[in-house]
């Protein structure tokens, strides 16, 4: 499929639009600098915007097919459909005429990582601008062709018509396959949202039919001529090095080659099953390694050496908060991405050139990291994106690509590697554990928050490749220089959007995680919002206030937030009263309702959630009956796609809240399958109702993560409402809930 597309592109003549927005709009250090680039703390997306080896954003061929070169990749969110909708409207072409090409370092703009819910909010802007400019270019050609001024022309459905006449010509005929270069003027106007015809409609996803018929080419399905199958063998315990490898132990398996470089160990075989058997049967003796024993996770998280410490908010004076303050500390555990398909990489590394097929979120950053690993120049390495199993952040995709590259380099043939389930659960970079401590006091009237102090302990939420081989697992295994730590994401949503007169938020930025950790959906926003919105309820309880009214009182200056709260109040059938004041202590199943609110990243989507739960007093089992979600992310491109994202965030976050915690000991991760690391199943899934607030004249805000952050606090607040018990540690497993109920009843 990829080859065919390349050929197709080579044959397609057409319009090539270079993009010349001021570089400052995307100002990022080049990822190719050997010194190791850094990105601003709050921006995990990065990207250079305009690499010199990319010749445009879109092309129109002789058949009128529009090919879009989008620097954001399809992670299973429907982004390819959404960007095509935007181009269809801006360029006035039929939606069906648009193909969004998979990203490739050879011909795709470097738009950085596909991350941070920014694919539409930031990523679509230059594409839309390019499409608008392309339409002007076609209009100029038409004006010359018809001998009329451009303002006498009308564009629609990929054709230009002379206003009030029958004369018309298609874009394809006007271009006639000619290359057409044109800079994009910053001043080129994009359409008024009132004129959108395709944006705002629930266009079916272009990728779904192939996925339903089993014909979609996932990375895991890629077959390269001459391709061999590889498997990796990881150090046991974690951090160990190889003492010896008994090659004779797999001598009975035909055609197997063992690849060893420092602590990296793998096997390559003609067939996948042979590679798996070789991986399992090869006798390896490891030496050294291991983790420090952890008895108390919160203590261990805070004991990690500090990278830096700084206040990200410091307003008024919080020194008055003393022993009378309301205080609480919250803990979030390590969690795994849990992609259903283990990570995969395919590589064809030759002496002069390496081709890598990868499900990475950042093809350019990965390229420079792997180039270093292979001792090849960047220019000799091409990374082609191919969609893999669902991606919710920095999972094992980058590392699996490096595995394939090392194995291919060693054997001189194309190699496909897929991790086994235990390797995915054991070795994907984890969503980090975090501790958040709050202390606050109400005003003299006991109605509003007078002072609030927050302390957050978090490692960086990004150890993405970032162009630095030291960030790759295989870099660590092959003794690459230690990567520079760039602190990202622990401060996401550490600050609340409520009006607090005296407010201090201190980040304790940790040097590392206890386990190797990186970006997982919501980054620190998930952990921080759990703590913040749980604590808001604790403060509302102290104020004897209705939780919704209490939040409203602290958001009085934010009209959009108030609109959202009105929407969730209606959708969730909120009944105003202080929490935990309607507890039926005789009921076997205690019902409760909880609320939460966030403005994601303080400036992105607004989301509120009301959770209805049933707590089984006997077992401690929590059943989420319903999640009501109100969502405002500005202009909505595809309502059904947006609902799909919100539902997915809600179910996944409910799973993380109720069930998920990575278990580990001194040897490494021990929750290595779906029994020891359970996730939500069909029988766990609640009813979900959604209220979308569409704001066509507001900028697009992201929707990939925001909903994730409000689920845990809404459920925790609902459990409190049902039972009077406050849970400050995720996950809310039956054992933990039961223990809290028992403790409360004997208190």
């Amino acid at each position, binding site marked *: 499929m990829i080859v065919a597309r390349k050929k197709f592109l080579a044959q397609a003549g057409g319009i090539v639009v270079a993009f010349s927005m001021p570089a400052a709009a995307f100002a990022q250090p080049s990822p190719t600098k050997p010194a190791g680039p850094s990105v601003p703390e709050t921006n995990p997306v990065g990207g250079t915007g305009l690499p010199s080896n990319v010749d445009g954003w879109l092309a129109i061929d002789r058949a009128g097919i529009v090919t879009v070169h989008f620097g954001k990749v399809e992670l299973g969110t429907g982004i390819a459909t959404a960007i095509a909708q935007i181009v269809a409207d801006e360029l006035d072409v039929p939606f069906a005429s648009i193909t969004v090409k998979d990203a490739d370092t050879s011909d795709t703009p470097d738009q950085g990582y596909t991350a941070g819910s920014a694919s539409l909010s930031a990523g679509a802007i230059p594409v839309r601008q390019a499409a608008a400019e392309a339409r002007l270019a076609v209009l100029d050609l038409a004006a010359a062709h018809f001998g009329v001024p451009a303002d006498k022309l009308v564009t629609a459905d990929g054709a230009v018509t002379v206003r009030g006449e029958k004369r018309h010509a298609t874009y394809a005929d006007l271009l006639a396959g000619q290359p057409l270069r044109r800079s994009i003027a910053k001043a080129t106007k994009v359409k008024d949202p009132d004129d959108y015809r395709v944006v705002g409609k629930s266009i079916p996803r272009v990728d779904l*039919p192939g996925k339903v018929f*089993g014909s*979609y080419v996932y990375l*895991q399905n890629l077959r390269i001529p001459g391709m061999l199958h590889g498997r990796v063998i990881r150090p046991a315990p974690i951090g160990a090095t190889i003492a010896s490898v008994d090659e004779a132990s797999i001598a009975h398996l035909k055609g197997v080659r063992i690849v060893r470089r420092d602590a990296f160990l793998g096997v390559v075989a003609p067939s996948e099953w042979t590679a798996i058997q070789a991986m399992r049967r090869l006798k390896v003796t490891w030496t050294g390694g291991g983790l420090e024993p952890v008895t108390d996770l919160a203590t261990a998280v805070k004991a990690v050496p500090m990278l830096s410490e700084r206040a990200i908010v410091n307003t008024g004076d919080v020194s008055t908060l003393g022993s009378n303050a309301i205080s609480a500390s919250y803990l979030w555990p390590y969690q795994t991405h*849990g992609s*259903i398909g283990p990570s995969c990489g395919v590589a064809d590394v030759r002496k002069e050139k390496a081709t890598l097929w990868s499900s990475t979120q950042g093809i350019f950053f990965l390229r420079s990291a792997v180039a270093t690993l292979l001792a090849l120049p960047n220019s000799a390495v091409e990374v082609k994106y191919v969609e893999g199993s669902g991606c919710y952040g920095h999972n094992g995709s980058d590392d699996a690509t490096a595995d394939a590259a090392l194995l291919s380099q060693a054997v001189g043939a194309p190699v496909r590697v897929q991790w086994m389930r235990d390797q995915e659960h054991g070795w994907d970079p984890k969503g980090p554990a975090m501790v958040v401590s709050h202390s606050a006091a109400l005003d003299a009237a006991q109605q509003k928050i007078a002072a609030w102090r927050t302390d957050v302990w978090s490692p960086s939420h990004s150890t993405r490749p970032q162009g630095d081989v030291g960030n790759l697992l295989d870099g660590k295994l092959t003794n690459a220089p230690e990567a520079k730590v760039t602190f990202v994401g622990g401060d996401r949503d550490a600050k609340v959007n409520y009006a607090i007169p005296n407010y201090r938020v201190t980040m304790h930025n940790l040097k590392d995680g206890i386990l190797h950790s990186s970006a997982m959906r919501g980054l620190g926003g998930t952990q921080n919002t759990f703590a913040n919105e749980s604590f808001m309820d604790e403060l509302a309880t102290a104020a004897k206030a209705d939780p919704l009214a209490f939040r409203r009182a602290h958001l009085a200056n934010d009209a959009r937030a108030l609109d959202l709260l009105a929407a969730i109040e209606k959708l969730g059938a909120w009944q105003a009263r202080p929490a935990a004041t309607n507890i039926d202590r005789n009921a076997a199943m205690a019902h409760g309702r909880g609320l939460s609110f966030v403005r994601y990243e303080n400036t992105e989507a607004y989301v509120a959630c009301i959770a209805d739960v049933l707590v089984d007093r006997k077992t401690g089992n929590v059943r989420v009956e319903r999640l009501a979600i109100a969502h405002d992310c500005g202009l909505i491109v595809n309502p059904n796609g947006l609902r799909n994202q919100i539902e*997915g965030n809600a179910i996944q976050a409910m799973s993380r809240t109720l069930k998920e915690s990575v278990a580990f000991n001194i040897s490494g991760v021990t929750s290595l*399958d779906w029994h020891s690391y359970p996730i939500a199943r*069909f029988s766990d899934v609640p009813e979900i109702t959604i209220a979308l607030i569409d704001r066509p004249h507001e900028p697009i805000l992201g929707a990939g993560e925001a909903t994730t952050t409000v689920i845990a606090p809404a459920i925790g607040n609902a459990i409190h409402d049902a039972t009077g018990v406050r849970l400050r540690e995720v996950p809310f497993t039956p054992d933990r809930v039961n223990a809290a109920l028992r403790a409360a009843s004997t208190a």
Partner: protein
Amino acid sequence: MSIKITVNGHAHDVRATPDTPLLYVLRDELQLDGPKFGCGLAQCGACTVIVKGRATRSCVLPVGSVNAPVTTVEGLGTAAHPHPVQTAFITEQAAQCGYCTSGMVVAAAALLEQHHAPTDAQIHQALDGNLCRCGSHLRVVRAVKRAAGARA
């Protein structure tokens, strides 16, 4: 070594040792991309195929023990002639990344052979062993019900 199996109505002689899990034969020998490797432990359902009318985990089924025709998602239907479950999945937009979808479609098709109008509880029971990490569950349930309605 050669083993005879019938997949999607076609008889094949495949070169594999009898202990090879059926999944690798389907994917690597017959180049069928529908069944996916998810866990190799019969815990997630991504590899589900139909054998003797039952949803079966091909990742733990030795090919040497397969003594009945096998149906994969490719054998259920095509874009030109879709199975009602496939049509319903598209109508309901019942996927995100779609890696689990083949297994879901196959399991749902097997369910509808046994229960023409399944209840929510029957759907949950039939699909509880099929894991989805993206959270498309509610859409999948709607799709199964829609497909049942279309067949009725």
